């Protein structure tokens, strides 16, 4: 019975993983990746690890994949861009490296095949929430606290990365006709291009730089 479940969920995971890599649309890849996560969570249940299975579904299939799909839909990139020719050699290289990895794995599995380790049949509390909580808060308290610091750092880092940086302050004023910008300030990809671009007003300069510019009300009136 456990063997049958293993074959079903392992097949689901491998099939979804191959589908994920072969898809060209990132949204379909994300859906396939959720299939992999569900398959792995089912395998965790058969391995008597219900807490990890629940966390897998909640954190991976729930939180992380929702974030990924949110970003895919936010950016809304058309996936019909033509493939570039000079990248063709990557596919044989990847397949060769995959063959090497599989060969190494087969060698290791062949070496350890003699050890007939079976899943223990007796009931134990390893994998239940009780034993995991006990381990986290006694023996592994320091890694647990370091993890919380890591999460705080991730929050601050994500906020500072996603914030829109402003080049001009909202109260900046220039003399009309005198605002001259270099090309590499306006277009980040034109590195070292110092071609001067003149703008008439601060509003125009702000528009070129992609900054929201709201003129000060007091000075308009």
């Amino acid at each position, binding site marked *: 019975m456990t*063997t049958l479940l293993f074959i079903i969920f392992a097949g689901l995971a491998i099939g979804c993983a191959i589908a994920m890599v072969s898809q060209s649309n990132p949204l379909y*890849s994300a859906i396939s990746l959720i299939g992999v996560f569900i398959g792995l969570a089912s395998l965790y249940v058969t391995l008597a690890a219900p807490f990890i299975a629940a966390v897998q579904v909640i954190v991976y299939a729930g939180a992380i994949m929702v974030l990924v799909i949110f*970003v895919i839909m936010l950016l809304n990139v058309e996936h019909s861009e033509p493939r570039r020719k000079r990248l063709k050699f990557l596919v044989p290289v990847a397949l060769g490296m*995959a063959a090497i990895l599989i060969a190494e794995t087969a060698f290791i599995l062949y070496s350890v095949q003699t050890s*007939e*380790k079976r899943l223990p049949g007796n009931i134990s509390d*390893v994998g239940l929430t009780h034993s*995991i909580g006990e381990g986290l808060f006694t023996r592994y308290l320091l890694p647990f606290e370091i993890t919380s610091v890591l999460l705080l750092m*991730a929050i601050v880092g994500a906020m500072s990365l996603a914030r829109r940086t402003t080049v001009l302050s909202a109260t900046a004023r220039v003399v009309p006709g005198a605002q001259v910008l270099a090309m590499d300030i306006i277009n980040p990809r034109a590195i070292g291009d110092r071609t001067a671009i003149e703008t008439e007003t601060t509003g125009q300069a702000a528009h070129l730089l992609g900054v929201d510019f709201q003129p000060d009300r007091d000075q308009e009136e």
Partner: protein
Amino acid sequence: MGPQLSWYLALSAILFTIGAVGVIIKRNVIAMFMCIELMLNAVNLTFVAFSSFFQDVTGQLFVFIVMTVAAAEAAVGLGIIITIFRNRESLDVDDASILKL
């Protein structure tokens, strides 16, 4: 007879290989990101399999910490992806060839 430990290790190795191949083949930043998540999950499967075959809870605690790191990586990584797309109008990794955002 139930599944043996080596079956889980083989499945984990296959999933890891598929993820590694995906990172090399894919040119879309988000697709590469998801392949990295797949590799993390393959390693998690190894941890859980060893943990329950040897009746030691330490492996599952490591899985818990790996999941936390993956969540932090998702937040920061997607922030970087959004910033790159905002500046370059593209998700192709070959367009993001300089370290400047």
